[in-house]
């Protein structure tokens, strides 16, 4: 395998793995909002 092919592949794999893990982990960690519309609107304001 040439260096250019290896670097292209490694870089792409790293970028995709980073964002996949980052977003998925954040989604798992963040609790789902169960607040009511009124509570939400108060906070949003």
């Amino acid at each position: 395998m040439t260096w250019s092919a290896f670097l292209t592949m490694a870089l792409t794999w790293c970028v995709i793995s980073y964002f996949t893990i980052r977003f998925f982990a954040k989604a798992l960690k963040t609790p789902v909002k169960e607040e009511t519309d009124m509570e939400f609107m108060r906070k949003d304001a």
Partner: protein
Amino acid sequence: MTHQEKWGTRIGLILAMAGNAVGLGNFLRFPAQAAQNGGGAFIIPYLISFVLMGIPLLWVEWAIGRHGGLYGMHHVPGMMDCMGKSRALKYAGVFGIFTNLGISAYYVYIESWTLGYVWYSVTGAFTGMTAQEVSRLFSIYLGTGSGSFVNFAPISFFFLLLTLVLNIWILSRGVSKGIEKTCEIGMPLLILFGIFLTIRALTLKAGVSGASHDALIGLNFLWQPQLGSLTNPKVWLAAAGQIFFTLSVGMGSVHVYASYVKKNQDIALNAASAGWMNEFVEVLLGGSIVIPIAVAYLGLDWVQTNVGFEMGFRTLPSLFQNWGPLLAALGGLAWFGLLFFAGITSSLAMGQPVISFLQIEFGMSRNRSAWLFGLICFAMALPCVLFYEAGCFGEYDFWAGTFSLVAFALIEIIVFAWIFGMDKGWKEINRGSDIKVPQFFRFVIKYITPLFLLAVFLGSIFKPENGDWAAAVSRLAQGSSWNLAPDSVLGTLLNRGMTDKRWFVDGKPTAVLFVGATRIFLVAIFACIAALVHKAWKNHAHPKEES
């Protein structure tokens, strides 16, 4: 009629959305597209298309879906109707039912092949077969190659019915108990099978397990950057097209899944998470299985001329036989098993938009609407199955599975950004968001994504011979005519790929007749859905977006 479905858990929703996106194309289409379009250089336009078109479209579709869900609209005509004052908007949503019906008709058929091939693999049906015999088995399985126009094989029919019944049963259990549970089991298994095959593929060395080359040669072929291809519009259109189809956007299934998300719950992070997970499966796993294994056994020259969709069925099972009986069975189980899970998690997403339309607009029970969907799907699958070789299958794929997706995505992005309006649209995307969507995407959604889609749409209509745009433009400048590619929309309509355009030859029907009849059939289905939408809106009042 009340429609009380909802997602059970956040992880279930993300896995269902990722399962919707991850399909057979991740493992069979992506490697072929990358190999044919510049290898490593393909990934640059591919990732740019993902950021400028894929992710924005996902956010738009999730937003349209959740917004429609607030009005009780869990089907695409209803969601589109909620986007503005015009009465015509609901008819744009017809695409959201038509594409799902049209695609599921042939997709469930392919899904059933994978189930059949899981059975063949675990029962050792390929043991002792030569490569030619394995390839011929696929023709026998499909009932093709006999010279007859009717392609009937009892075994493929049996697995089609089994797959269809399985889909109906899961759909009839509902969003949370049926679809979500299946995706929670199917997606981890798919990734597990994919990791097993990737490790096996990348450790294949010349002289070991019957391999004649190192698998890394295959990876090198796929990832060697050919920067010259970046200036070729064909590569950009292929990359944008791949992103488009891999994310299952422009279908209506994302909208419908998102319509079960509550008003103040996040969509931005969920959409990004599902989208990137699809990329992980496609690039890391999909790009590391078929081509490295095929190159290890058959060499680069063979792969360059034979890379394509059927390779996974005609070629791979015979290559697994080099691994010994146990690993061959495991390899077959993992390969066809992952294709099956990729298929079923997508076909379920295609069923839900149809079912929710029947439930909400015609008061059907979930069970009844699931069975009716199955019946329609089966009736529509029959031409694909019986006249597979005559080109019916290809017509479904082209008009329902390709053209309609691009057309609908272009319509929906214009409706969202320009009719619903970016002010409301941006608020909708960000409401309850667990990530801060960069402001840059507001501009992208309003201008860049529509232009990207317009380029893909026009590119598919006017694609020149061999995809060579530079040559076609220069020929046009010299006063010559535009040479349409046979697989362009216009080229397909004009039957450019067919030399003999007669309907009958020696009293026998030709492919031209079957292709023409399939097109009329698909137009009739579209018209029927439009009529049903019209009737539904006549039957009772629907909520409208307040200005």
